[in-house]
């Protein structure tokens, strides 16, 4: 995978976030403050604009630039968290012109670990990590037969779906306590969407 692959991924992610923004905001209205979709839409639109204006030449640089844009434009918790995910993953990829599936898997797991550290969260807290961790782990275990990115998509979607039964322990939804149970986590849902676009682009 080269820089062009990652540019296609982020363009697809921006289009998907734009398409799904209202759904994400509705999910957030149930247990947060009804802005997850509109915030991500603003951030990914800025990512698409920045990457169009000056597309970087390596996978790592594409992800790092996208992460910086998210930190600078999204706000809320999702700005620093998604920004850190992409920046850290990009940094792990270094200056390589092309990266393998295994290298991307390792870099993604480092990026996800950075998100966990920044947010002080772990899987099961009903956050984006509930989709990011299984997704990144699936790419790590991808030497099995079949499309590795499809496994990522499926694992992340399953993780996001499972947040419905969880009680939130982090972020604004945590203030709801038991009342957060029965709702999908908007962060896990947007993370699943991000990995779904990765599978779409890899196909």
């Amino acid at each position, binding site marked *: 995978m080269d820089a062009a692959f990652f540019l296609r991924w982020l363009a697809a992610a921006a289009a998907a976030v734009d398409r799904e923004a209202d759904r994400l905001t509705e999910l957030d209205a149930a247990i947060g403050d*009804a802005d997850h979709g509109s*915030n991500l839409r603003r951030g990914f639109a800025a990512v698409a604009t920045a990457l169009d204006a000056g597309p970087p030449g390596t996978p790592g640089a594409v992800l790092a630039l996208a992460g910086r844009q998210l930190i600078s434009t999204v*706000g809320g918790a999702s700005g*620093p968290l998604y920004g850190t995910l992409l920046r850290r993953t990009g940094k792990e990829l270094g200056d390589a012109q092309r990266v393998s599936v295994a290298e991307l898997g390792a870099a993604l797991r480092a990026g996800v670990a950075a998100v966990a550290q920044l947010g002080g969260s772990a899987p099961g807290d009903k956050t984006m990590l509930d989709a990011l961790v299984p997704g990144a782990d699936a790419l790590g275990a991808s030497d099995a037969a079949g499309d590795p990115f499809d496994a990522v998509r499926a694992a992340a979607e399953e993780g996001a779906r499972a947040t419905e039964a969880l009680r939130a322990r982090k972020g604004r939804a945590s*203030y*709801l*306590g038991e009342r957060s149970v029965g709702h999908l986590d908007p962060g896990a849902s947007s993370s699943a969407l991000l990995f779904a676009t990765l599978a779409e682009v890899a196909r």
Partner: protein
Amino acid sequence: MRMLINVPETVVADALRGMAATHPELTVDVEGRVIVRRDAPVAGKVALVSGGGSGHEPLHGGFVGTGMLDAACPGEVFTSPVPDQMVKAAAAVDSGQGVLFVVKNYTGDVLNFDMAMELAEDEGVRVAKVLVDDDVAVTDSTHTAGRRGTGATLFVEKIAGAAAEEGAPLERVEAIARQVNASSRSFGVALSACSTPAKGGPTFALPDGELELGVGIHGEPGRERRPMMTSREIADFSVDAVLEDLRPTNPVLLLVGGAGATPLLELYGFAAEVHRVLAERGVPVLRSLVGNYVTSLDMAGCAVTLCQADEELLRLWDAPVRTPALRWGL
């Protein structure tokens, strides 16, 4: 939807243009989303910078001026500002004496301000941070992200701002800010839901004839819902919730806050009940303030914030302040 807006996307920028036109004593960067007192940086003075989601006006921009904040960073509605704003603000107000960030305890605000602290320090600005977490409605435990920051933000910014104005060094301003936060507790009640421009309607469903006890300033649910109560009953419940946690041994400063859509006629009536119950509980009130200071857009409701004050905090509270929303002694 009955909102006095153009389109949801420009509400924050439109409000900033209005602030710029109304308050020539402020410098308003509409594009960069930073509100700065015009005479900043003030030589020899520690600077105070705060910020958070928009929709809580006059917090934070309304508290920029002599004796309070040097700069404020408004985010999108109910969304934390981004680190670029805080770094820009810190650079604009730092006189070399350092900057204190006043941060309300919400995950987004904390993360963005923490990133900003690192970036500002990279640029050679000395930064300290105080976290405001006064809301007793949700308790601090391993199962929550800690208490929310609400009305005490006003006490922290006013009192620490006065200390900075007097020339106290950064460590001292930070210590006073922490003392004020540790001495303050709040409890809020919603009589109606708030509406965000982006959603175009109520952010949660609160049926007519019910109220939410312990509501957050973004409409986050609190402890429980009940059928409508009288002002007297709400005052008893709210003050007792605060006193249960604060247990003051000193007299208090009192803020009777409106949530944005409750008229002063009702707030003053509520203030009378709050004073009554505090007197019944044997808690003397040194100063009190009634009005919309830390709001939740068009939410109807009220909040009680108490700050236990020693002589020095009282002196700093009484010190002159000149901002769009708070003004005395100047």
